[in-house]
């Protein structure tokens, strides 16, 4: 009898077990499979048991973009049981809520009271009980379980049990975010990513399981990809949600692919994923954004500094060169001046002593008045030579020539005339002193001296436009201008003219000598002197 009862019981157990097996999805030992669907490190645990008709259970350990909770994807589940394992004395400190399809609150902050199972003191979970949080119809439903401890009200553990079909993102669109603007971009667009681009905004139709949707951006050239777990934000219009991709993800030039896909399993891939939706674009090689603005400024400043330094050095160099050139020029001029001074001071000694002899003659003839005057003239001439002035006025030059010719007149009885164009400001126009003197001396000695009273010398200062012409003409017998007459003071004069030309480069002195049987004419033209 005892055997019969035992076998009946066994049978009954078997039936129950069988029935249980039919009811629940079981593990390899035939026990109902308890899926731990809670959140890592949570103070509260949640276990899920599904019916045996369930085709697929995808428990996640955790989702990056859903840090406070977990999502469990189910396929074909009809009913689910939810339990939490709690210390038996602590039950009253727990509260739980069950929300169906985001709208129907089945339980709200309920205290777990139903106990499914108690673990004994020697078991693996001593003094723990399995609190029954309910059995729910799961057909095409989203059931959210929230549980928290009253001493940690803010740390709510949430699990979404999702037993609905999952679709690819719908109404997916992309916009380029500028500093102050947002513009739509089409697939396969080329983008110039400059400093004002802030990112790309992805928008899709809102779902009741947005957290499942991930965005990955892949550089197709370098094959580097970044998985973004965006926090989808709802926007007011059109039941859409948005998520932004920062510009740093696609700043480098190259081809990019943005994939939006639901993570239907842990470590689900977007590649060859039927539910993945792709968007392609190319970041163009930047024209200006090779450097950031800050870099540009810094490099700009450095370049400026370098160019500045080079420029400065060049300027200094050129200035120094210029100064050297100027100094050299100055020195050349100074040399010319010194040489000129030495040339200028050469008054024919023949003349000097003959002039003194003339004065002596006057003294001996007791012509003291004449002697006084001629002595003064002689003094003026020699003083002029000794003082060696660079420039004298035309008036002073006229006086000197007059003094000289008067002294020569003492010796030779010739006629002379000195005149100047009426429109010449003889008092204020300055010329190098005694330019004509050697020619006048020459005219006296070799031209008119022998002619006596018939001899004539004419000196003219003529204004010809901006040129000043110093002219000396005599009616002597002339000389051959092609021959070099050492004694004629010609070489001296030519030397002086060329020295003057090295100082007054812009206003050249031109010496012209015409000589024939009827006389000699010397023209010294000071071009553009006036």
């Amino acid at each position, binding site marked *: 009898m005892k055997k019969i009862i035992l076998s009946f019981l066994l049978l009954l157990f078997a039936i129950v077990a069988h029935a249980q097996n039919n009811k629940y999805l079981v593990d390899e030992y035939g026990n109902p499979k308890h899926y731990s669907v809670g959140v890592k490190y949570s103070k509260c645990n949640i276990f899920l048991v599904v019916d045996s008709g369930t085709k697929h259970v995808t428990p996640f350990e955790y989702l990056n973009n859903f840090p406070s909770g977990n999502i469990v994807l189910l396929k074909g589940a009809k009913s689910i049981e939810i339990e939490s394992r709690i210390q038996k004395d602590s039950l009253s400190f727990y509260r739980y809520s069950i929300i169906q399809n985001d709208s129907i609150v089945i339980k709200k902050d309920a205290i777990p009271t139903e106990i499914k199972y108690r673990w004994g003191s020697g078991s693996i979970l001593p003094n723990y009980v399995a609190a029954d949080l309910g059995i729910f119809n799961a057909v095409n439903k989203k059931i959210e379980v929230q549980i928290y401890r009253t001493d940690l009200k803010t740390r709510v553990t949430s699990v979404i049990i999702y037993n609905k079909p999952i679709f690819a993102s719908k109404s997916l669109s992309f916009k380029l975010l500028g500093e102050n603007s947002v513009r739509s971009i089409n697939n396969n667009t080329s983008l110039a990513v400059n400093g004002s681009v802030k990112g790309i905004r992805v928008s899709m139709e809102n779902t009741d399981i947005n957290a499942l949707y991930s965005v990955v951006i892949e550089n197709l050239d370098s094959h580097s990809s970044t998985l973004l777990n965006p926090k989808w934000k709802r926007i007011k219009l059109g039941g859409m949600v948005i998520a932004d991709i920062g510009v740093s993800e696609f700043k480098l030039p190259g081809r990019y692919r943005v994939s939006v896909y639901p993570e239907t399993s842990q470590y689900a891939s977007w590649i060859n994923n039927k539910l993945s939706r792709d968007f392609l674009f190319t970041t163009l090689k930047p024209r200006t954004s090779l450097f950031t603005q800050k870099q540009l400024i810094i490099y700009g400043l450095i370049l400026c500094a370098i160019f500045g330094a080079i420029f400065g050095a060049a300027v200094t160099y050129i200035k120094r060169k210029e100064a050297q050139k100027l100094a050299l020029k100055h020195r050349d001029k100074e040399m010319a001046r010194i040489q000129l001074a030495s040339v200028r001071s050469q008054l024919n000694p023949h003349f000097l002593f003959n002039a003194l002899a003339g004065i002596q003659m006057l003294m001996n003839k007791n012509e003291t008045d004449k002697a006084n*005057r001629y002595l003064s003239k002689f*003094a003026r001439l020699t*003083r002029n030579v000794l003082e060696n002035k660079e420039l004298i006025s035309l008036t002073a030059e006229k006086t000197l020539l007059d003094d000289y010719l008067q002294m020569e007149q003492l010796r030779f009885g010739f006629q002379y005339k000195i005149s100047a164009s009426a429109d010449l400001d003889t*008092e*204020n126009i*300055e010329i190098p002193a005694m330019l004509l003197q050697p020619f006048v001396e020459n005219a006296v000695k070799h031209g008119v001296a022998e002619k006596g009273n018939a001899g004539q010398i004419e000196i003219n200062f003529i204004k010809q436009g901006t040129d000043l012409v110093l002219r000396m003409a005599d009616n002597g017998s002339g000389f051959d201008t092609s021959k070099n007459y050492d004694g004629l003071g010609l070489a001296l004069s030519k030397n002086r003219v060329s020295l003057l030309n090295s100082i007054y480069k*812009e*206003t050249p002195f031109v010496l012209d000598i015409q000589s024939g049987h009827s006389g000699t004419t010397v023209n010294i033209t000071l071009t553009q002197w006036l």
Partner: protein
Amino acid sequence: MRAILVDDEAANLENLKILLAKYCPDIKVVACATTIDEAFTQVNLHQPDLLFLDIQMGKTTGFDLLNKLTLKTFEVVFVTAYDNYGIQAVKFAALDYLLKPVDPDELKIAVAKAEIRIKNKIHGEQLNFLLSQIKKSESSIPKIALPQQHEIRYVSVEDIVRCVADNTYTFFFLANGDQVLISKPLKEYSDLLKPHGFIRTHQSHLVNPRFVKSWLKEDGGTLLMDTGDKIPVSKPNREMVKEVLGK
């Protein structure tokens, strides 16, 4: 007019005496002196109208005599053999001077000018100015005497903006805006002021570079003065002006 002649060479005194007797018979030579001390005594004794004063007298100068004579009721004509530092100072004071050997015509002119000054009784002032200029250190900025018909202006060389020639006259443009017309040719002043940095930009223009604002390229070269005046630079002077202004 009563005159005293001062020269360290007796022969020069004799010569000048003869020239004065011959060409300026109105002058009565009351005394001659070959030393400063002697001259000092003679001047105090005779109170002459006119002094012919040699500048270089051995180790002393004619200026030493003037320094000793506190009361100057006479005119001075300086006599010197050669243009030197002393004569420059005399020129700056716009005083008269003769060069040896003395030209009879120049002697006559100098005496005639002295006569006018004696009549107008402008004594001492220019002489004191001359002495003050000589005492000054060489680095200090000299003043120049600008004799006008009724007054003599003493102007610091620094305060002369520019000079413009008008035949034998010279217009002075001063920093305070005054214009002064002087009856001497520009050449005299250009010789005096060039050593003090002045530049002859043109036959009719002498310019103080201190008052030059900029070089204008119009007409081949023009100087713009601080006063806004434009001064022409003639072609022969262009390089020289650039050189001076470039420094």
